[in-house]
């Protein structure tokens, strides 16, 4: 599990909400705010944030991506820590920024990446005292960039294991791509849908009530596939799951 910073809990964090939260899926960013505040952290949301640049980079527009990367670094570097509810977007900061930026920008990107956490990494590190309870059975989908670019498989599972009443049942291949792949899902819609179908079948085979992941992109794609094919699958972002597992403030 990745360790960042000096091990002390930051007093305030900037929320890296992601453009997916702004355009399609606001729930996970909201949930992340609520969980972070319950951890006693002051949350700020830099209003000028837009997109980390990953869609541009992966579509073959490195110039646009570099410009958005520099913009992101400039915006988030004043903060003590940054937390994002997306393994993929956080991986862009950690993995891609140092590769696409050069000179002083690369150093600045590395420095802010050091303080940038994916949501479950932060909760796994500092959420030990948070009472969590939710009676449910879930299966966890490793999103590809979180797993392979950020190198994080442990933190989300550690967070899930802290929720009383929750049972995690692993799929046969939790680390196989769900077929989203950003623009891939539009360029190769049928292949993407077939991959999503296979993921949903594996999830159903576990008997879990819901499929949980740390990336809204994967979840939007999987839920859309399930809805269109009449499947009964329910997907939930792990930040929303943790928020829903929080006990009422009075008893906390």
């Amino acid at each position, binding site marked *: 599990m990745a360790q960042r910073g000096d091990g002390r809990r930051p007093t305030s964090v900037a929320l890296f909400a992601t453009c997916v939260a702004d355009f399609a899926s606001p729930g996970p960013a909201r949930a992340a705010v609520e969980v972070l505040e319950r951890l006693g952290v*002051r949350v700020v949301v*830099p209003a000028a944030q837009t*997109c980390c640049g990953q869609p541009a980079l992966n579509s*073959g527009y490195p110039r*646009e991506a570099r410009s958005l990367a520099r913009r992101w670094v400039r915006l988030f570097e004043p903060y003590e820590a940054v937390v994002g509810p997306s393994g993929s977007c956080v991986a862009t900061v950690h993995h891609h920024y140092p590769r696409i930026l050069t000179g002083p920008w690369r150093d600045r990107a590395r420095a802010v990446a050091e303080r940038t956490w994916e949501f479950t990494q932060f909760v796994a590190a500092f959420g030990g005292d948070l009472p969590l309870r939710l009676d449910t059975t879930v299966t966890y989908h490793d999103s590809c960039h979180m797993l392979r670019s950020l190198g994080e498989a442990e933190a989300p599972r550690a967070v899930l294991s802290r929720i009383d009443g929750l049972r995690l049942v692993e799929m046969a291949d939790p680390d196989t791509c769900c077929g989203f792949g950003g623009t891939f899902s539009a360029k190769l819609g049928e292949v993407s849908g077939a991959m999503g179908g296979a993921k949903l079948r594996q999830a159903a085979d576990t008997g879990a009530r819901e499929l949980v992941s740390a990336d809204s992109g994967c979840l939007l794609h999987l839920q859309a596939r399930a809805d269109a094919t009449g499947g009964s699958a329910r997907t939930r972002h792990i930040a929303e799951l943790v928020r829903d597992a929080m006990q009422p403030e009075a008893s906390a």
Partner: protein
Amino acid sequence: MSAEVGFRPEPFPVAARTALADAQLRRNLGKATTTIRAKRAQVVGELDDWEALREAGRALKERVLRHLDDYLEQLEESVTQAGGHVHWARDAAEANRIVAEIVTGHGEREVVKVKSLTTDETGLNEALAAAGVSAWETDLAELIVQLGRDASSHILVPAIHKSRAEIRELFLRTLDVDELTDEPTELAGAARAHLRRKFLSARVGVSGVNFALADSGTVCVVESEGNGRMCVTLPDVLVSVMGIEKVVPTWRDLEVFLQLLPRSSTGERMNPYTSFWTGVADGDGPQEFHLVLLDNGRTDVLADRIGRQTLNCIRCSACLNVCPVYERTGGHAYRSVYPGPIGAILTPQLQGIDRAGSLPFASTLCGACYEVCPVKIDIPEVLVHLRARVVEHAAGTRPVPGPEALSMRALGWVFADRRRYEAAQRAARAGSVTISRHGRIRRLPGPLAAWTEGRDAPTVARQSFRQWWAARGGAR
């Protein structure tokens, strides 16, 4: 740059759609790749120094590429000293001409072949046929492809798309057999009887090369069936065609590669047959040996700082077996002898972006290929790099930017400014409400339509995260 034979120049999305509709193909592929993935994972898991071996393989290949000119000249000298002949071929046509001239120069009309991707790449069989020479494939899967007038769909298992029942039917139709079940031993027996006649009659053998040692001039071919051993020992004349990146400095380097290759490709600790030969030896094996060094676009790949790691490839096919896209589409959709993730980066670099520009987009960038690559080719990194080259190429050939370039540039403009970004959110929300019915969007307009094939579109949330945050009076 060569045109590859047997493939229509269809873009990947079109070809993938056809493949996806073939249920039998998907069953065959799913079964085969699942089995081989499990075998690989098991034998790789046995080695506690696997990561160190991968790093050693990568570093060795990188050194070879950095000093490629020196190693190739050293190889030429060593092979020549050992009594072999070395030929340099700029492209596929030149390589094919050299091989055809050697065969016809001996008055021969047929050759036996060891499975070789390099000669598939050059279209050697077709070139030999044009020169009046029959080339007989002797690897079982290559034979199946050849008899069926089919095309290879996998680097290691060219007939992976065929079931046993389909192979039985093919053999009954094309080989001299009356009765046959679909038991693997019976199928192999029928092929063996056919091939033995060819091994004993052909006077020229043609092979590819897995490794060639610069310091001794020794050439190595790795295989599973023993057909390769027959081809490189029985004929009087042996011609081996190798891509220039296949040279390695010395014997000791094989310690690394001969551990990496079999475990990654067939999931075996060691492959059954590993043949080495050094030039010619009096009265033992072929008495004439030719080594053809093929460029065919490789020096262009070498000149690309990010793309050059593609030349590390030892053709193990582990990336195909783990790729969820390949598992759905099969190899034919890539329209190249190099399919799957490695093909998606190698083919556009060898053939040119203009001929294979859809391939770098045939991936979700999931990175499973990089994880298993025994020589650590960062395939997602090269894919993204090539996507940028495709975009650049399109910008250079179009009089006005295409719709994607326009929308991407527009997105860059919107994302660069908070007010424009928030205005775009409002517009998206309004648009989403306009086209949705009962809260669902079943069909998106324009270039986004592909998303709604087999999926609903997500509707834009009624209250954006920003509105919620502002309503809450949150700090900024």
